[in-house]
């Protein structure tokens, strides 16, 4: 689809990374807080966060003894990358649905 968010698009292609991205969009979190909300270990969360940081979508800062992760305010492609991902997956799913399941005749009169 759009090339502007190409990096973000690839980074958000992984379902777990996308889940982390969405949680951080709701509010900044620590690794532990993310791990509590996901079916993966803290270590796995950290690995995904590293990929997201390297890709410029996420930043972190130390707050006392805690490290808080948030979406990167300078990662200006993130919103478009995210929505781009939504539409790419939605259209692909739509194409499959159209091929796989023609509508029932009973819906003809809608």
């Amino acid at each position: 689809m759009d090339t502007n968010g190409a990096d973000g698009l690839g980074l958000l292609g992984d379902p777990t990374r996308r889940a982390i991205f969405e949680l951080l969009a709701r509010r900044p979190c620590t690794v532990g807080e993310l791990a509590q909300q996901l079916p993966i270990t803290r270590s796995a969360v950290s690995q995904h966060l590293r990929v997201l940081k390297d890709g410029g979508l996420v930043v972190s800062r130390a707050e006392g003894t805690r490290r808080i992760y948030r979406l990167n305010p300078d990662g200006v492609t993130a919103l478009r990358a995210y929505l781009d991902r939504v539409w790419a997956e939605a259209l692909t799913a739509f194409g499959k649905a159209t091929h796989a399941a023609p509508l029932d005749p009973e819906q003809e009169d809608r």
Partner: protein
Amino acid sequence: MTSTPTIPPLTGTITVDAPVEQVFRTFTDAFGSWWPAEYHIGQADIATAILEPRAGGRWYEQGTDGSECDWGRVLAWEPPHRLVVTWQINGQWQYDPDPAHASEIEVRFSAEGPDQTTVTLEHRHLERLVEGQALRDGITGGGGWTSLLELLAKAATNQT
């Protein structure tokens, strides 16, 4: 009066082997049957998503607990060739009822032949989401997503 620059719209297209009338109905009547379940905003898991088949209709998700969360409204209902809906989901993944903060999704259905249809989608007015966020910023003090949207608007200016 707006101070927010235009953010380039997102576009997508797909060609499917089915008549245009059927493709339009699948997109609208059967919306909940194909929409990826991981994309929803309600606290509950999504049971289905519904696009009401009329101008002014609601576009919303139903949760497995019976709750409903609005996504937007149907602006144009022109079967089988054109559909425009709003996307009014803010940075906190909540419905923003203010029409001034509504981005728009236009979907066009073009018959390439009796059994082939091209669907073209454009998600535009993304800057209106930014305006909504900027307003919200004054109330909540902002967050990562808020700043992101504001900087996105600046970046869009710099690119032109």
